[in-house]
């Protein structure tokens, strides 16, 4: 009994929505980054699910997944460095307080 592809797609859609909700609703900038990481992982899970069901013989999707994971790691390093720099300036990681550019 095999699992239909739609199950994986629905799971990753749900995870993407959870990450999006976290990134949009929370005040803490670190939780916003956590939400972005959850969205990244949902996308990569989608990629691997499509690879498993449709192109099992070639490894292109796995290459894409490896590069996506590397880019996500670089993104999280830069994002956390930005959070630390912002904290040094505002003494807070609250995204609602970062409004110096607001007119």
């Amino acid at each position: 009994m095999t699992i239909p592809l739609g199950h994986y797609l629905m799971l990753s859609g749900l995870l993407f929505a959870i990450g999006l909700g976290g990134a949009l609703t929370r005040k803490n900038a670190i939780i916003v980054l956590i939400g972005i990481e959850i969205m990244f992982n949902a996308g990569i899970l989608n990629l691997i699910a499509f690879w498993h069901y449709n192109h099992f013989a070639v490894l292109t999707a796995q290459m894409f997944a490896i590069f996506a994971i590397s880019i996500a790691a670089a993104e999280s390093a830069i994002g956390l460095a930005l959070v630390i720099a912002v904290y040094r300036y505002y003494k807070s990681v609250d995204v609602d307080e970062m409004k110096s550019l607001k007119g």
Partner: protein
Amino acid sequence: MYIAFWFISIITVIGALLAVVLRNVVHCVLSLILFFLGIAAHYFLLRADFIGAVQILIYVGAVAVLILFAIMLTRNVTGGEGPREILGGTWWTGTITAALIAAILCWAVSVDRVAGVAPAGAQAKSSVLLIGRILIADWVVPFEAMAVLLTAALIGAVVIALEEVMRRR
């Protein structure tokens, strides 16, 4: 197979939910680690074992530790008491957007629309040897570009985080 899928899926979704709703940021990161492990288990279930190992090494080993260090360096860990203290000013638009996106995605990928062909007993060619070979043969240019990107990201992160020290000199 089916039971394993549902078990891992439930653990993954619970980890993701707790990672965005818990009040204490450190608890959020611990739930995030649970989520990452669940995703890695899904990769193993999908017979992408190298990606699963990479997921555990990079996400659980590096990204989660990086987030924990960022929490320690920014210090106000616990947030406040009520939901007003942890939710942003426009939390209801965010919630509505996320719920809409969830509904649209679930509608778009509902089972009768997507037809995936299950691998008909094909031997898994996902061995690490093969991945390493095509990584330095067919994919060598993206591989080197990724090396440059990671170096640039490393230097950039250090420069951004050390901004004040550099200005003082």
